[in-house]
């Protein structure tokens, strides 16, 4: 398989995630876009671990990094949704453009 396949797919998914972070107003949808970005990075790590395989033996380091990213992403979603819930309880809305108290 061509190496560019994995990396181009990961790049396009990353850009879709970036668009979602910029365009979305709902905090839960922004967290979903962040998940898209993290998954694109994971695909890159696994693609590179295959790309750097020596004599047919896959390079394991990329797999370990991907597992770490999965764990960190799970923690991030937990804390992020708890914060979203706190904002919702205080303001009855999770629209990100209404959170403007810290505007200078």
């Amino acid at each position, binding site marked *: *398989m*061509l*190496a*560019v*396949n*994995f990396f*181009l*797919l990961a*790049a*396009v*998914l*990353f*850009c*879709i*995630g*970036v*668009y*979602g972070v*910029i*365009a*979305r107003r*709902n905090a*839960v*949808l922004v967290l*979903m876009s962040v*998940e*898209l970005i993290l*998954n694109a990075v*994971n*695909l890159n790590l*696994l*693609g590179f*671990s295959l*790309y750097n*395989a020596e004599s*047919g033996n*896959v390079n*394991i380091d990329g*797999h*370990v990094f*991907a597992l*770490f990213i*999965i*764990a960190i*992403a*799970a*923690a991030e*979603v*937990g*804390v992020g*949704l*708890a*914060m*979203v*819930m*706190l904002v*919702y309880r205080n303001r009855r809305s*999770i*629209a*990100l453009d209404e959170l403007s108290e810290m505007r200078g």
Partner: protein
Amino acid sequence: MIALLAQDGAELPDVNVAVNVSFYAIAAVMLFAAIRVVSTRNIVHAALWLVIVLSGMAAQYLLASAEFVAVSQVLVYVGAVMVLFLFGIMLTRAQIGAEGNLNNRNWPLGIPVALLLAGVMGWAIIDFFSDDTLPEPNSGASTQAISDQILSPYLAPFLAVTFVLLAAAIGAIVLARKD
């Protein structure tokens, strides 16, 4: 590119047709689902499209011969994170249906940013890797090899990740607790 190589009489690279066909099929489904995640007007549908993207990602991990990471992806993302997202949607919204104002006022700004980023990254990737092929692995990365890596050279980061998860769990409880 492969046809050109064959015409030149060069050695034909190892191309596994089944792997390529399944890669392109899954990639097409994933791209469509990802675009629906960031464009749909129904927030529950966005979560369900995200399930398709994450499952397709697990299938791509299998094609990259990363069985353990693929299973972890299904367990953590499709199993746990999606349930968390659906809980978040249910607890923060009253109506489950189409909603008009899920986007920012200046959402069109995101399109040129994403296209520019995709153009630059795509150009760099194609320029650097042009015709390189991924090697066919002898076997998948064994779970034993991964555990050997995690529990000896990566032991300190692994312990750090466990503390991060503990801190995240405590932090989530403290934040979401009703006083």
